[in-house]
């Protein structure tokens, strides 16, 4: 298995080995010695780590997180990464995200539409190391392509594709291959895996910008 980034460890909680990061607890997750368990069933990125995907993350990276929702996953990311920009479109989850951000001085919450990067390009810096994307909208590949402008040349896109957001009637396999195909117009896919064990009808993708 590839190494976990610095700041992410497998720790024992009540005798069970679980992924964990160090930080203030957010959603009632188990804690031990300042570490908080990271539940892969509630986090697509957590599932990608749990399944041993090679995310290329080492810790301390600058991150653009698209689809931060109520901050569950992004709180763990901010625990081990550097400056983390969290974009979320809906006001209600953003209310919770703000609570998470208040206790993390390098987490920057933004109420913005990930399909319109120009509305936050004056805030998010260029050459971020990682884009994490988990948006439940149609056109997920398109969102990744539009946000490529933020990513450093050797940066990584960590993408969770939700089949049902693209088309509820099509089979997940055909949705995934369509997303992969359109993603390949701007990215080179390094690895992809179904997240089935933790998230139904989701595909995890690790990619880097095409040269």
């Amino acid at each position: 298995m590839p190494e976990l980034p610095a700041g992410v460890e497998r720790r024992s909680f009540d005798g069970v080995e679980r992924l964990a990061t160090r930080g203030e607890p957010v959603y009632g997750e188990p804690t031990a010695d300042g570490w908080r368990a990271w539940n892969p069933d509630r986090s697509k990125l957590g599932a990608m780590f749990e399944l041993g995907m090679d995310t290329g993350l080492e810790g301390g990276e600058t991150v653009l997180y698209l689809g931060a929702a109520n901050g569950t996953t992004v709180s763990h990311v901010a625990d081990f990464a550097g400056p983390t920009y969290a974009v979320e479109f809906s006001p209600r989850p953003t209310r919770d995200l703000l609570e998470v951000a208040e206790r993390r001085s390098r987490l920057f919450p933004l109420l913005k539409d990930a399909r319109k990067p120009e509305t936050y390009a004056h805030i998010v810096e260029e050459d971020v190391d990682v884009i994490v994307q988990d948006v439940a909208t149609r056109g997920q590949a398109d969102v990744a392509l539009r946000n490529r402008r933020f990513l450093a040349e050797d940066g990584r896109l960590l993408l969770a594709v939700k089949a049902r957001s693209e088309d509820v009637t099509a089979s997940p396999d055909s949705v995934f291959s369509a997303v992969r195909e359109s993603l390949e117009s701007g990215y080179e896919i390094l690895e992809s895996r179904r997240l089935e064990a933790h998230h139904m009808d989701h595909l995890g993708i690790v990619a880097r910008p095409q040269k």
Partner: protein
Amino acid sequence: MSGDGWFVGTQNDRLERIRYGSAAQPADWPTLAIESATDIDDETMYYDRLHEATVSATRAAVQARERADDNQLIHAIRALKDCRRTANELAERLSEWAGTVDPEAGTGIDYAERLIEEPPADCPEPMISLATRVVDLAQQAEDLEAYVERQAPVVAPNLSALAGPVLAARLLSLAGSLDSLAKKPSGTVQVLGAEEALFAHLRGHAPSPKHGVIFTHEAVRGTRLEDRGSAARALAGKLAIAARVDHYSGEYRPELEAEFEERMATIRARADEGDDKTESGDSHA
């Protein structure tokens, strides 16, 4: 270049910029800010200021979006539904409990009211207190309904006129906002609230649903079975238009109602003519 960055200007300018500003491309904002902003000397200060500014600007943006009127209405209609359901569940519980001390125990909110007025002999104090809670919750639901009836015509005058304030609010609640209801095609409006049946249909083992929550509208419920699909389709078509008018212009247009009534008269006339042959396309509806 740095003219485009969020950090230009006073603290207030910065908050405004974060909410409404834009740039075609990102840049090395931290470096540009350190060079140009007098209150930002190094990277640590840059990120501290950015944190402060994004948290306040985003909080203000969230509050503004959540205070929008359709949002208030949606919260109220959901609270109304919760209060009704909870009141009924507790009334049922109360009635079961009361049956142990009162052979004449009735059911529902009415019985809770009676129980408070004339508690049966041997009735324990917590039972009366529970009955009070049931009556209070039912009253709360009434208050919420009154609020919805007042507010819906302000938020969505045309939709409320056609659907009635409560159904209008339920449609908004199902769509999530007036904005998203206004963008839905009439076929989607027709089956809002019948998602389960719709997905069963899309999976291929059920007929397409004729109506969702609009079933509660008199024009649908009060129409004979053979013509209900037509009525639901006519109503949904007008509701979709009404939502768009409410969203994009906000003006009340009584002609929408008139057109709908005319259409309904035609559909209902079929029953009077004893003509049970439906329009083509209705046979599967």
